[in-house]
């Protein structure tokens, strides 16, 4: 899931293919991050994982790894 998520995440951010994304990255510090990317990321997580993260919960997530963890917890099996 991890590698795939990072690809989806990179795409949702509209970042260049070469952009390195690490689990410990604080994604809000990325140059690309803004409110539109935020919407794209919510939409991507919904479409790829059928998971909707409420904004109050999303605010608590700081890193890329944190996002993956949260999705993992909620993923429908």
């Amino acid at each position, binding site marked *: 899931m991890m590698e795939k998520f990072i690809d989806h995440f990179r795409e949702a951010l*509209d970042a260049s293919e070469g952009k390195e994304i690490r689990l410990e990255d604080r994604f809000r510090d990325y140059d690309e991050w803004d*409110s*539109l990317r935020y*919407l794209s990321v*919510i*939409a991507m997580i*919904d*479409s790829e994982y059928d998971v*909707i993260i409420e*904004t109050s919960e999303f605010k608590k997530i700081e890193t890329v790894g944190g996002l993956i963890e949260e999705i993992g917890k909620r993923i429908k099996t």
Partner: protein
Amino acid sequence: MGFQHFKNVTVKGIAACVPSNVFDNRKLSLLGNSDQIQKYIDTTGVVTRHLVNGRNLCSSDLCFHAAAKLLSELNWRPDEIDCLLFVSQTPDYIMPATACILQEKLGLAHECFAMDISLGCSGWIYGMAAIGALIQNGGFKKGLLLAGDTSTVTKSPKDKSTYPLFGDGGTATALEYTEGSSGLMVHTATDGKGYKAIIIPDGGFRNFYNPDSLKEVEYEDGIVRNNLQTSLDGPGVFVFAISKAPRSINGLLEHFDLDINKVDYFILHQANKILNERIRTKLRLPVEKVPYSIEEFGNTSSSSIPLTMVTRLRQQLTKGQCKLITCGFGVGLSWGTIYLETEKITCPELVLV
């Protein structure tokens, strides 16, 4: 819970009116450089918008022009209208009700039932349900639903989270008591916990207008507004809408045992492109069944569903039969879905004023 079937009610006509003044988001420096502007347009879908732009045009004026045109094409006499509902977040005054002003302006009878409903993006759905409830028993025969908003007036031109998204519009929908018709199948829902997600904080009676109301505050880069202007929690509304709207539509289909494949068109409130596309793909609907008007008019609040019908489905609505799902969601938070069938309804060309 939340499901109703108003039988004996049919839609006879729909008209829409927008200001002639067009604003092109591609020229909006608030959004940044040309790449940033393109990104904005790709995400929200909003290329142009029609704005009242300081012309002292109210929602009621746009609705009035739509209604006048519709009544004349329907050959309905104003004195035949038994009830008038005006749905808006931008009424003429805090009091009196704008519906009263419209009753007089349209020359409707004194015996007309007239009232305002304060809703926005879900407003057309709620207005339809309310008129359906009023006329289903045949006491009232003809009803007029006027739904419109001049949302741009309430947005700060320095707020990139709201200003580029919205457009102005007014609409009129004519409904009639028709015994034996399939009527309106309705689902409605509310979650007031999210009341702050879309809000104008000052100027009502909770927070009176006060000297600080006009004070501009910079919330973040490119988001400057005062408390008489709309604050929008975009991601919050996004999450709300992608969860609730598909569930409302699926719930309605299931409750009334309707086949999703037999629905001709799904007309969604035009919130923003990426959001509406999520709803469309979650419901696995083909592109051609989900018309968009947001690229031309922006998010027009309570107008967006009928405006999309008038500008994108006019031929289909006037020439034949249509099975339609309509779904509105937003400020309140409030949402709802209506299934209705139409047959050769009156649908004048878009009115520009």
